[in-house]
């Protein structure tokens, strides 16, 4: 079957679903949707509509609008999609019955509407892309979110999916494909922000007949859920990017690396891979072009360090996920000793767009040195927590106010915790900084994987830093003793400080430990262990001074923080 035939079949299925005869109800799902109770709503709608064959109920991704979940989207006969937010089972019944009896939306629960071309919007309901926060977002990698079923390849193809792959395979050779990515200015979204095109060229230059593209979805950073979010919403987009990476670099195999237990991303990835094999978008001689490529899902157990690129390869090989010595670098000696390239989920998810629309178009989005968009995750004390795709260059202040809606409490926002537990905090005085890899690093802030935890003025900075260090201590793999012992020692000291039993030179000792960790650890886990403390001292030295004068405000009779006691022997 050639690609045009696939497209025709897919479009037919999509058009049927959107025809006048069908009412299509989509329930936003994923980790966030599940936590908000979307499964119950989905099952209820299934029951309510069981005797009506013109009503189809699907689970889709939740578009990142966590604050609005459970979120349902009803496309009725007129083709207009109406979104209802924060529904409960009772509200769902009410909405459903109203729809069946009157065939009009129950406007009191409505968030917004999406109106197809040539139709008039329903009066009194805002258009979804005009509401806050969505009017400030820019959808490239997230354009299908909430629209298509993540487990249906035809939905993806009908909405322009695999066109980038088809274009590359039929009109571009691997070199030209790689150059498109290089010219787009795409930089890695896992934290290091290195040029993706240049990284790929290291692998492309190696002549081995077995080469691996490893897609990292370990995502252990608390506060970051955009990688899993992509797999929950649109796994085929990631898969297409992964295949394109294989084509551009001449790789033979791809792996999607996920932590065991994250069932929705794992199931979605497995289904997407199987569907792609069934349509010869994977496997031998893809679409008859002579290019062959295999992809599988690899699981890891619970280990934060498994997200480090060489530790990740150890985990796929079935060992303890501890980082390797470098050099040799993965592009020369990686998984199973073969040349390998590790990319973040978000990075690969931009590639289909770049190939389909061209590198110039991608480069025109965002800022000079950071092209494209950022997919940021907001959590903590913020009115509209969720996952949002924004153009690079937006200021932190605008992100918090326009998209996040400001503080969720009566207190002002005091700081952000960004870049994961090895990142740091960002104080209010730097909220004018632009979201851009270089602008942020100028003020010492780290965008990292895009997780932004918002904390209001009641937050105790010293206690927050203790939590970050406790996380790093618990997750140290133990290979390098400066990291293993250093984190433990720092946590002991911070526990003492938080319990109003500081020693005079505590901060000097912590700094010394931090220095040893920096010079004596193989990977970022140890090297960056001191960074959260350094950044907190930069903005909130007075709070540390207060704590060190044994006047710690949250002292409550020497109560210990509750932490896991499991360690890695």
């Amino acid at each position: 079957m050639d690609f045009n035939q696939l497209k025709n079949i897919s479009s037919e299925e999509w058009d049927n679903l959107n025809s006048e005869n069908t009412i299509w109800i989509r329930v936003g799902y994923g980790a966030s949707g599940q936590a908000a109770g979307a499964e119950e709503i989905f099952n209820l709608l299934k029951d309510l509509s069981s005797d009506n064959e013109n009503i189809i109920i699907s689970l889709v991704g939740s578009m990142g609008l966590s604050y609005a979940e459970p979120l349902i989207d009803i496309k009725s006969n007129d083709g207009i999609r109406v979104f209802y937010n924060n529904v409960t089972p009772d509200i769902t019944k009410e909405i459903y019955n109203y729809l069946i009896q009157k065939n009009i939306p129950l406007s009191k629960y409505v968030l917004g509407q999406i109106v197809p071309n040539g139709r008039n919007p329903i009066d009194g309901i805002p258009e979804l892309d005009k509401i806050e926060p969505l009017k400030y977002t820019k959808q490239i990698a997230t354009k299908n979110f909430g629209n298509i079923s993540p487990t249906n390849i035809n939905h993806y193809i009908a909405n322009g999916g695999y066109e980038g792959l088809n274009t590359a395979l039929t009109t571009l050779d691997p070199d030209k494909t790689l150059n498109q990515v290089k010219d787009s200015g795409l930089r890695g979204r896992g934290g290091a922000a290195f040029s993706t095109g240049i990284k790929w060229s290291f692998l492309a230059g190696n002549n081995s007949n077995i080469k691996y593209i490893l897609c990292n979805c370990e995502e252990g950073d608390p506060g970051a859920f955009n990688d899993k979010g992509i797999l929950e919403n649109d796994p085929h987009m990631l898969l297409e990017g992964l295949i394109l990476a294989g084509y551009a670099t001449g790789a033979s195999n791809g792996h999607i690396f996920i932590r065991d237990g994250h069932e929705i991303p794992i199931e979605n990835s497995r289904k997407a891979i199987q569907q792609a094999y069934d349509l010869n978008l994977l496997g031998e001689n893809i679409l008859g072009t002579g290019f062959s490529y295999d992809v599988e899902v690899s699981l890891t157990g619970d280990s934060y360090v498994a997200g480090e690129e060489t530790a990740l390869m150890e985990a796929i090989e079935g060992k303890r996920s501890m980082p390797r010595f470098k050099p040799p670098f993965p592009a020369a000696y990686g998984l199973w000793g073969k040349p390998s390239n590790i990319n973040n989920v978000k990075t690969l998810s931009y590639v289909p767009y770049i190939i389909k629309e061209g590198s110039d178009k991608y480069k025109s989005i965002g800022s000079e040195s950071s092209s494209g968009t950022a997919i940021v995750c907001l959590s903590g004390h913020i009115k509209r927590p969720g996952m949002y795709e924004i153009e690079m260059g937006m200021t932190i202040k605008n992100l918090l106010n326009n998209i996040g809606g400001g503080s969720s409490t009566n207190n002002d926002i005091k700081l952000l915790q960004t870049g994961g537990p090895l990142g740091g905090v960002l104080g209010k005085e730097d909220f004018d900084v632009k979201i851009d890899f270089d602008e942020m690093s100028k003020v010492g802030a780290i965008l990292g994987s895009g997780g932004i935890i918002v904390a209001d003025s009641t937050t105790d900075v010293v206690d927050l830093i203790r939590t970050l260090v406790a996380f790093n201590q618990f997750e140290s793999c133990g290979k390098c003793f400066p990291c293993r012992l250093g984190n433990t020692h720092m946590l002991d000291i911070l526990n003492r400080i938080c319990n109003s039993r500081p020693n005079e030179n505590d901060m000097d000792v912590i700094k010394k430990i931090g220095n040893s960790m920096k010079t004596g650890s193989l990977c970022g886990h140890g090297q960056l262990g001191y960074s959260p403390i350094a950044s907190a001292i930069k903005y909130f030295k007075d709070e540390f001074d207060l704590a060190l004068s044994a006047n710690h405000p949250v002292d409550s009779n020497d109560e210990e923080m509750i932490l896991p006691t499991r360690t890695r022997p």
Partner: protein
Amino acid sequence: MRNNKKPTNNEIMNAIENQPKISKKTVLSCLLAISNEFHFIPKNAVEIVAKYTGKTTNDVWGVASFYTNFRFTPPGDATLDICWGPSCHILGSQKILKDVHGLLGINQEGETKDGKITLRYSTCLGACSQGPVFAIDHKLYGKASVEKIKEKISDI
């Protein structure tokens, strides 16, 4: 009640062989398959995995003891995970943990006296935007409070 009968060697072999398709079965992939099937790693499994993968029992113990999701005794009927990561911490997870200790009558991770519930502290369950988060047997719940946890575990 969960069936906590010690799995036989045959049952363990079945779990290893029926794991999802993968190009190379490894010590870790076999241990994950066993853990997902029986909710713990039985002692006899270590030798079986070693033999199956051509590694030593030392290698297998090394991997099994490294990843914090593996355990070596049967868990309670249900596992309650409560997140203590920074995002949930800011939203009050320490207080929730303390209250849940009181609710379950334990003061650390582990099983309740009646063996019904296993409590675990989780570093991140991946639904930060609904925090504080807890999970019962991997099913996630947001906006955690001790009342909500009490309600959700009441029918275990």
